[in-house]
């Protein structure tokens, strides 16, 4: 389970199978639903606050001038709503204190 350098939904489902005792199908489904509920909240314009981990917030970005990098032609970048993530102080401190950069 720890052999890959990337955590994915499949590994999260394995952990729910091991640690919570859900069956494989339930575990996979719950991982999907976990992320889907966060998407639904954000889509509705709600921010999502997962204490100890971090907050997902929405930002309204106004239209701004842009350029086609290939042709140099000016084209406006349309107004949009984007998601930003702010790691909690706890997560930031854990990363700062325990990850010294030896793996990257």
């Amino acid at each position, binding site marked *: 389970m720890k052999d890959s350098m990337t955590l994915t939904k499949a590994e999260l489902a394995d952990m729910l199978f091991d*640690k919570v005792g859900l069956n494989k199908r339930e575990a996979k489904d719950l991982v999907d639903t976990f992320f889907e509920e966060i998407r639904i909240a954000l889509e509705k314009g709600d921010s999502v606050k997962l204490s100890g*981990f971090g907050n997902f917030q929405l930002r309204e970005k106004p239209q701004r001038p842009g350029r086609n990098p290939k042709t140099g032609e000016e084209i406006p970048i349309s107004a949009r709503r984007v998601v930003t993530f702010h790691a909690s102080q706890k*997560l930031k401190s854990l990363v700062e204190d325990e990850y010294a950069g*030896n793996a990257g």
Partner: protein
Amino acid sequence: MTKSELIGLLATRYPQLVAKDTELAVKTILDAMTQSLVDGERIEIRGFGSFGLNHRPPRLGRNPKTGEKVQVAEKYVPHFKAGKELRDRVDHHK
């Protein structure tokens, strides 16, 4: 939406699970994500986004009170990039 509201939503979707299991499931997912970042591993959730660490090089800072120069050590900070599905779904201008 808070973590406890998320746990509540999952509990209503999974009536076959006891409430404690739903809470443990959310804790297990968030702990695993935290541990991955602490280990310097990336997290990739298709349709949601990816988490990783960004490097901040050492820099010369200043103590804002005294104006004294201080060396700030390099560090790593968590970073999230929304995936295409999430970007498209939250952008109500589309």
